[in-house]
Every structure is written in C-alpha cells, then in structure tokens.
C-alpha cells in the first residue's frame, strides 16, 4: 500500500504511487486495484500509460470511460502517447467526435476493432457490447470510476476478470432521476459508485492515492484538499516561483484589488450585497462579466515554467467562467461579450460553461459564480451542487475568483435536513454542507465587498 510520500519530491512521490499501482495490477494478485486521484494529479496520464502497459502484457485491453467526450479525449491521448499503438473507439448510435484516421478505428462492433491494442468505449456502450464479450479480457480499466454506477458495472464487469478503477472521489456521486428509496441502505445498491461496490465485494483490494496535483498551484491546492478531500490530503507539484500571475498597473477599484489578491494568494471572493435572486441574478452576472473584461484589459502576465516561453500575457482562451446552471451560462456569455466589446477587448475565446462540461479541462484563471449565491434556501440538490464546487474550484493553474452574494453561510446554517436517514447507507465524503462551509470560511480572508458593478 501507499507509504508516506510527503518527504519526497513531488515527481518521485507521484511516480512511486503509480508504479506501485501498476505493479499490483499486473501481478494478477488482486481482482481489483483502485487509484484515487485529486484534480489534476495526472490521472489521464496514468490511465493512458497503464492501458499501454497492460496491452503489452495481455494484448487487447478494454478501457471504460463515462462520457463520449471523455472517451474521445482518452483516444487522442493514447495516440499521442505511443506512435505505434492501434487504438479502437467503440461507439453506439450517438457516435463520437472522432473520425477514423491511421491507427484509430471508430466502429460499432468489437469484431471490427479486433486488431486494436486498446479499445475505448463509454460504460453505456460496453453495456451493450458485454453480451458478446463475456470473459474476453484479463484486465479492464475503468476511468472516472467514482462517476460510474454499480448497476452499470454489473452489465460491464463480465467483460474482464480483473479491473483497475481510477477516479476522483471528491466529485459528485452518481445519481438517478427516479426514486431510489427502494435500494437505499443496500451496500451493493445500484446507485452506489462502482468503486464502493468493488471495495465492498473485495475489501482487501489495494487503494492507491495520487499525492500531488500538477494543475492546482501551490496557493490553490490547500483549500481544495481541505474542503473536498479530507480523507486524502494532497499537495501541489509546483513551487510558488514556477507559477505566477504578474499583475501590473492596476487601479484601486474593487475588481483590480480582487485580481491582485487572486494573483498573490490564489483566491479572491467578490461579495455582493445579500439578496435573494433568480439563477440569472443580473448584478452577479454583470460583476462576473466586468471581472472577465478587466482580466483581459489589465496588464497581466502568466508565468508557467513548463511553457515556452515561460511568460506570456494572459490569453482569452486561458480564462474560463464556471456556473452551476445552464441559464446562467447563456446570460454570462452575453454579458461578457457586451462588456468586453464596450471596453475594446476581445473575449470571444473566453470559455463560459457549466460545471460538468468544464470537467477534465484546465485554465489559467477561472471565475466562478457561486452555486448558492442569491438562493433563499439550500435544497438537498443545492448542497450537492455545493459539492459541484469541486469541479469549479479545481480547474485553474494560477488563480480562481469567486463571485457570490453575501449570506451564503446563513443559507447553509438555516438548511434543515429533511432527508430520511437510511440504515446502512454510504456516508458521502466530503459532506456537501461541510465542504461548502470550509470553502466560505477560507474565502473570508480574501473577500472584497463589492457594490453592484452595473454598467
């Protein structure tokens, strides 16, 4: 199992864990091997390298992804990682964003991909392919295994005899839109994450934890680790000098002070006056747009030691705005375009999207509209959305600025737990309520009370 890696340098610590996990997997001594990964800890790199290693060991290797976008990304990375590898993308009716190309087959049946070293498909597609592929493979790899549901794994698992389950335990648990009270409290219940089921069935399976986030900067990692990964602390893989946001010539406006603070400390919180507002809270959205425009208009250099050149001005496509709700996405896009136009900067390439669509992506600076901002009450769903924060607060390489209304903590404090308690039910870690409170507490130190930044 994972020894203490805290004293080692980040690369060695990381490599030690991945090597050990791969050794456990290839040894054949365990039915299942689990690898827990915090955001940006090199999970994709690990999955790709391991898939190639397993293919070298056993021949064709199946990889289970959770969405078509994730499966496409994996295929691209596999092709880049090994110039001799034949990759197969098994697709259903919804297809893939990838087209056939040399070394990449995009087909509907496994038979058409029989020459491939690695075959990638979504869990949903494997569910259908499993019927004809039972017992076909020795080792299978499941990516984003914490997002996969136990019932899906039941359909897919007959395909392989041993599994590597890789995922991020801090993310939202899988869910169902239907009433699942019938199965609550079942340890092998269909809604449980696949990893929980496997660990219940095979409790001696090794669980490795990747100890280093390469994405989150030194100033960003502690908050995310403390709030969302209380049971698996991690650290940043880079030093303060290797990542810097150099801000010059800013004014004394609230926005500029927030930007400077974010550059210095990794975080800033622009707090609007308390008010109950609809999701498309005009003032909040205007503030987000003004902030993005200011980020582009101000003289900001991004220093990142792995890039060439290491320093370059902050580019629009390296900025993202994250929101919880689709209606916010559209409203923010419009406001950003309007603000930037009147300020004479080009914000076309700024990415505005909802949390789940930002998953797996990274940017230099991320502006977040807090999911609980302006809400009158926190429903169970919104507490879950609070956990969704982990998606929004862990996309950045440099800094993250949160925009929200005052009073979020009060809404959380007033939240009545109306959900029944189920005997034997899994305890979600982290708890959505607590994670929210930790984030808010940490943001108090970098808070900027902001009046509405109306045009």
């Amino acid at each position: 199992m994972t020894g203490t890696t805290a004293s080692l340098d980040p690369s060695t610590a990381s490599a030690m864990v991945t090597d050990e996990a791969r050794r456990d997997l290839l040894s054949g001594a365990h039915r299942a091997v689990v690898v827990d990964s915090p955001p940006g800890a090199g999970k994709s790199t690990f999955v790709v390298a391991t898939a190639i290693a397993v293919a070298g060991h056993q021949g064709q290797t199946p990889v289970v992804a959770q969405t078509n976008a994730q499966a496409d990304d994996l295929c691209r990375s596999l092709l880049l990682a090994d110039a001799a590898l034949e990759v197969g993308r098994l697709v259903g009716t919804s297809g893939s964003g990838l087209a056939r190309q040399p070394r990449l087959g995009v087909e509907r049946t496994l038979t058409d991909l029989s020459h491939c070293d690695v075959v990638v498909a979504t869990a949903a597609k494997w569910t259908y392919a499993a019927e004809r592929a039972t017992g076909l493979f020795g080792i299978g790899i499941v990516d984003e295994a914490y997002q996969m549901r136990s019932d899906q794994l039941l359909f897919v698992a007959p395909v392989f005899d041993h599994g590597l389950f890789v995922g991020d335990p801090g993310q939202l648990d899988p869910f169902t839109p239907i009433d699942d009270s019938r199965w609550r409290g079942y340890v092998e219940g269909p809604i449980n994450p696949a990893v929980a089921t496997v660990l219940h069935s095979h409790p001696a399976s090794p669980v490795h934890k990747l100890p280093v986030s390469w994405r989150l900067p030194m100033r960003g990692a502690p908050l995310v680790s403390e709030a969302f990964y209380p049971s698996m602390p991690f650290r940043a893989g880079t030093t303060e000098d290797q990542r810097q946001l150099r801000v010059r010539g800013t004014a004394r406006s609230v926005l500029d002070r927030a930007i400077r603070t974010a550059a210095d400390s990794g975080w800033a919180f622009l707090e609007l006056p308390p008010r109950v507002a609809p999701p498309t809270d005009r003032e909040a959205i205007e503030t987000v747009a003004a902030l993005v425009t200011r980020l582009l208009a101000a003289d900001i250099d991004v220093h990142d030691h792995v890039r060439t050149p290491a320093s370059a001005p902050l580019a629009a496509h390296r900025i993202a705005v994250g929101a919880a709700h689709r209606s916010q996405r559209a409203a923010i896009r419009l406001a950003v375009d309007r603000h930037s136009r009147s300020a004479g900067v080009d914000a076309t390439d700024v990415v505005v999207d909802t949390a789940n669509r930002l998953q797996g992506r990274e940017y230099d600076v991320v502006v977040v509209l807090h999911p609980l901002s302006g809400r009158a009450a926190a429903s169970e769903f919104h507490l879950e959305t609070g956990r969704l924060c982990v998606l929004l607060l862990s996309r950045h390489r440099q800094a993250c600025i949160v925009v929200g209304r005052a009073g979020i903590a009060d809404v959380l404090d007033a939240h009545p737990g109306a959900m029944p308690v189920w005997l034997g039910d899994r305890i979600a870690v982290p708890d959505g309520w607590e994670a929210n409170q930790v984030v808010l507490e940490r943001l108090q130190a970098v808070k900027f009370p902001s009046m509405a930044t109306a045009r």
Partner: protein
Amino acid sequence: MAPEPRNRAIRFRKVFDPFAAHLCRYVEGRSARTIVERGRNLVAAAPQVVVPNNATAQFIALLGRSLRYLRTEGEFAVPTETVRAGAHLTWLGTRAEHPGSSVVLAATELLRRHWATGISDLESEELFAQLAWIDPSGARGVDAARAVEQQRMTGEVLSAGPTPDPAWDRDVLEPLINQFNEARQGADDARVIARLGVGIVEAVEAALRPAWDATWRAVDLVDSLPVAASVGDRWRDDRYDFGRHAQRVDTGEARFRTRDSVKQSAWMITQRERADAALAASEALDDPMVMAGVIADGQAVTGRVIDVNPPMVTVALAEPCPVPEGVELHWTELPSKCSVEVRRVTGDDQRTVELETKKGKTKYYPSVGQRVVYSPFNLAWFKPPTLPADVPWTHLGRAGDAQPEVPE
C-alpha cells in the same frame, strides 16, 4: 371496520379478510377479460387504486408484505384470498413505483401533476389544502388553502391518512375503545362485536369520510381534463405487467423477495429510468405548458425559421440561445425522425441559431416562417441491454453476500 384492531381475531375478521376478498374479486375480475391487441393477448384493463396521498400509496406495499406470507392452514390460518390479496397488493405497490404507471394514484400527486399552486410539494401532500387551492369554491385559492391549514391545526379537519391524528385518537377513539372493551368482557364473537362496535364504526366513518370525498373530488377534477395522447401507451404497459402478474398468481409462481437481488435491482432501475425518460418526453410533447417549462429551463429552443438550406436550418429565437453548441435536439413535430445539432449561435444577442439536421436530413425540414420547437426529447425505442447470466465478480466476493430468497 375493526372496533379493536389490537385483537388479531377481530382485526382479520373485520378488516383484512373482508377487504382481501373484496380486493381479490376486483383485481381478479380485471384479469378475466383479455383482448388481442397488436398481435398479443392482453388483459382488457389493469386494476386501479386511488388513495388520498403518497403516504397511503406507500402503505399499500407494506400491507401486501404483511399479508402475503401468512399461512392458510393450522393455527392462525387465514383464507387463501387474504394471502392472494397480499400478492396483489405487493404487485400494486411495486408497480406504483414505476414512472408513468397509473395502477396506484395518489390524489395529491395527481393534482400536483396537472395544476400549479403556491404551496410547496411537501405541503401539498395535505390533500385538503391542495384541493382547496385548486377548487376554492368562490374564495381565492391562497385564502381557501390557508383556511384549511388553519382547520388542520385546530383539529377541525383531520389528516387524510394514513397517519392518525393524535388528538383525535386521544379524545375520540380511545374513550370509545375503552368503553367497547369493558362492555364485551373479552368476547370476540361476530354478533357481539357488531352490536357493541357501532359507536366506533360511526366515529371512524365520520373521520374518514372527508378524505374519501376529497379523493373523489380530485378524481372528478382530473377527469374533466382532456386525455393526453401518450396515456394509452403507458396504460398498455400497466396492462401488460398486470397480465404477467395475474398469470404468475394463477400458476402459483408469484414469489416476492423481501430485498431485491443485485440483478433484479439493476434490471428494475434500467426499466424505471427508461420509463421515466419516456414519461418526461411524452409529457413535454403532449402538453405545451410542460414544454414551456422545458424551454424556460434552457433545455429546448423555440422560434421562427428564417432560413432552410439543407442540412442547415436557421431559427430566430426570442431569447439568447441557452443550448450550447454541439448538443443534439429533436424537432417536436417529428421527435423520433428528425434530430439536429446546434452548430452555431450568432447575432449580437445570441438569438440566431444554426441547426444541422442529422437524422432525417434527406426529408424532414420545416418551412421558412414556421414556428418550431427543438427539444431534447425523442420517442424512439431502443433495445435495453441484456443482463449478464451470472452476477459478475465485482458484485460477488465475500461469502454470505447472496440474498436469501423468501418464498411467498
């Protein structure tokens, strides 16, 4: 009605056995008639049970479980109908959880699905309050509902079940039962019970009558609405499932587990999620008010066609396009035959959207000037995946994990 439900003999003789016989007559009567439809033999109608609220609906399965394992011989034997009724109730309770099923209808849920009120989902489980808002007989809905809530607080109006009202239990029922037990002096033969229990029967009837009437009022209100196009399909699913249940009861194969097995729950959730998605799609496609909600939520777009240049269709929207590029939508006129992908959103305020026709690109296009809706819903059927023959290694492992099967 059992004047003393804590006495097993009285409880079964006065409530469970007669109720069971009645229920069997009704349910089994429904399976007697079959018709040939779409080439298969199908029961003409499934049973339908209407109850005041969700808590009562949930009670059905519990009652079924308490009856289905009873013995029909020896000590504490019950009539075979009582056990069969347990099987029927179990089926009703399980089927009630299936999205879109209408074999068990809770009046509160039925009203909530068809009317919008200012009371929350939780509060509207109080049938009298929700009904007062929807059908306020002259008053304003909000005032009528508030008045009913007041009366519930003071005990003038009792709960619509199944949880009894503690104040009524204490002040009305308890003295009557004490009186009854003193008078009968341990006797439990039918004639004595009937004679001495009159007062209790009257009191309970008076307490239950408003819930009975309110439930029928809710049914009448819903009956006054036009029938949605997709109702027939969902009712056919109910009839099909009921036919299978009736057959299993007939052949003595109606066994129920107390806990779903791993495979059973995986299959059930697949079926229910499919039914849930189909229900959401049908409701939106049947009812413009539901679709309006979907559009307001940013999942669908509506507007006027300004250009058709196959495979592209350009639509002018009234609002900025909320659907991101790359998302697949379906034309509501031909939801299973024509799909599009959001290609590009343009215009100063993001109100022009270019859609690339995918499915049906050779034939299905709206005309320029036409009002169109593109939604995430389609009604195409797709084959469900096949359950593995054996429980795979991921779900097996530790000894003793297999669930015992409890026969009926």
